[in-house]
């Protein structure tokens, strides 16, 4: 390899590597998904507006309203101290009901949490068998708190 060729390669690698490092570390900040409870969500205030969040908690008793025809779903998620109203347009999963643990992916829009995806969490009294996969986690990786 001639010296000029070497210099060419070194410079090319440095530029490309630098650009990639910049882009990947820069890109991470914008694409983080936060795992928050309702209290943490409220604590973060405006940061929650527009950020991708997995909100974990319980469906508050008496809060569930599902309009089957309009495909419109409203309920509150609570962690015992804080309550966050959630709105979604999807079809809720089979086990979805009041009092069950859920993980809602979406973002805060004003005072309401807009849900893109809704998952039902493990019920603790039933131990999930060990194996390659667990049920809710089938759909996606989820489980903000263990």
């Amino acid at each position: 390899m001639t010296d000029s060729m070497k210099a060419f390669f070194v410079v090319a690698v440095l530029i490309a590597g630098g650009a990639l490092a910049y882009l990947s570390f820069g890109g991470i900040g914008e694409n983080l998904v936060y795992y928050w409870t309702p209290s943490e969500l409220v604590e973060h205030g405006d940061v929650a507006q527009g950020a991708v969040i997995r909100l974990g908690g319980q469906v508050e008793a008496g809060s569930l309203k599902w309009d089957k025809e309009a495909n419109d779903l409203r309920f509150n998620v609570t962690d015992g101290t804080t309550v966050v109203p959630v709105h979604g347009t999807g079809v809720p999963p089979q086990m979805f009901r009041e009092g069950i643990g859920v993980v809602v992916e979406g973002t805060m829009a004003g005072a309401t949490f807009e849900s893109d995806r809704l998952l039902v969490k493990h019920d603790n009294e039933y131990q999930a068998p060990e194996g390659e996969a667990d049920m809710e986690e089938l759909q996606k990786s989820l489980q903000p708190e263990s």
Partner: protein
Amino acid sequence: MDHAFLGRALILLSIVFAASGAVVGYAGGRRRTEAAHQWTKRLAYSFGGALILANVVMIKALLAHDFAVSYVAQVGSRSTPTHITIVSLWSSLEGSILFWGAVLGIFTVAFVWKEADKHRDMAPYSIATILTIGTFFGFLIAGPANPFLDTPLPIPQDGPGPNPLLQNHILMIVHPPFLYAGYVGMTIPFAMGVAALLRGRLGAGWMRPIRTWMLLPWGFLTAGIVLGGWWAYEVLGWGGYWAWDPVENASFLPWLTASAFLHAAMLQERRGILKGWTLILLLATFCLTILGTFMTRSGVFNSVHSFTQSPIGPTFLVFLAIVMVACTILVAARMHLLTPEGEVRSPVSREAMFVMNNMLFVFFTFLVLVGTVFPLLAEAVRDVKISVGEPYFNRLGVPIAIAIVFLMGIGPALPWGKATDKEALKVLTVPMSVGFSTAILGAIFGVTQPLPALTLFVSGFAGFVALRDMAAPVLVRHNRGGVAWGTAISEAFWRGRRRYGGQIVHLGVAIMAVGIALSSSYQKVAEGVLDAGQTMMVGDYTLRFDGTRQETHPHRRSTIATMTVQKGGKTVGILEPRMNHYRMQMNPIGTPAVRSSFTEDLYLSVMTIDPNGSYVGMRAFVNPAIYWIWIASGIMLLGCIIAAAPSLLFARAPLPAGAAGARA
């Protein structure tokens, strides 16, 4: 017979064989005595044999429903069908590590049998390294992941059976062994690379077998990754096959560096350059498999595929640290001995394209590694729970992947050494035109988004180069040599099997790129709640919900929705997505129904279903071109087999330098 005792004894024996074999091997590598060589071989065979036998004992225990063995009590059940009982060997953590040992045993025996006597200078060090790793796995099986413990009294009469998901789909059974074979198989080329560093010598004569032994696990890993994606697609019901899940990434990372290595190795073999770089890729690949195992098996990630919390996580982390430190010391101490025999003379050459290809693969690895490990570090350092979203991976990963496919066309088209501008133009004009035509054809059918259109261009371009590269030797033989077509084809093929293998893999990659681009960019989704008789639309399809029925099996009860599919006013079929309730699990699992064709898949997934059958919540997808991803992976495997099989099956004398050059 006491299965638990026998199993434990075999595991302990395997540790003894591995540890003593490693000592004899390293010593024999230094002194090079015939006796040491023979003893290393014997101990390696014994190690492999003991681990394989231990697995046989476990399968026997499973089949005999010997619940006195802890693992059988954990996953066995008298009501499970026999074939499921056998595969429950790898359905849970302890069993999967034991099975891992069997795969390592098989690879060890195959390697010793095939290469030990052919490469007497390198074999003892290689085997010693394999056995060192084997010692670690032996301790792992004997200690934190021991499946052969005695069940505490009283011994149960029946067990819970394996995870019902194992029984949900055949792919769930077959994909883990492929991944294991891919992961474990990387041990062999790694050990061969370590041997080269210990000897301080790396020539084409040793690089060739390393490359072959890398091709084998690479093929398994490719198959394992695709089968895993296919399983996710057929079973999980979210309409996709890849989500940049940490565990998916864990298998993808070593695949990337292994792919980079396979290319760098060719450069090293043909031109004698980048020896150190090639070896570093080899070592990194192995480290990434260990990291991947740590991520999959330790429960640090909550993921689709990972096992629950287990004590073996820290063990793997320590092992990874030791391997990395050892590799770094070895590289630092020995790298200066690996003198290059050639050089890259021009940026317009095949060599230069290989170098760029390697840079891109390494960038890709870096990108995925950062995105995968970042949440772990964030949690460890700042105690926040986060994950990295898919857009991060796609935004940079997609352009890099497109660039790799583009290089896949340029590299093989350019000659070794140095191409003049005129030559370069000549070899690239026709493939470029084919690429443009593909993109235009795509645009006619509606593929107008920039990235998919670009993918069509690079795939058409690279696919054509691969085809031309395969056709050229045949044409030369027929047209200039006057050989009959049949003879010309078989001659060209048999003389250039590795090249044909490689180009077939490339063709598969080009097709897969198209499948991925179209299916991810042009997916259509619709969601709705239907009462009996109601319809919904997705794409060109009208779906009508005709009611539900129940099906009951010993292990599960299914509620099945009958959906009539209509297209253009005509009924084209009936799809039956279902919701399964398993005996041992509270939450039901949906199984989607897929209607596949070469152009598009219609994919129906039950979200929720009324127990009385009055309504169903349905999610419907139209996924274009997805079938081509599975076909493409088959083509890639075929190419891999063609490239690897001859060297593994037939012992051949190394080609003289002149002949190798002529075939390049």
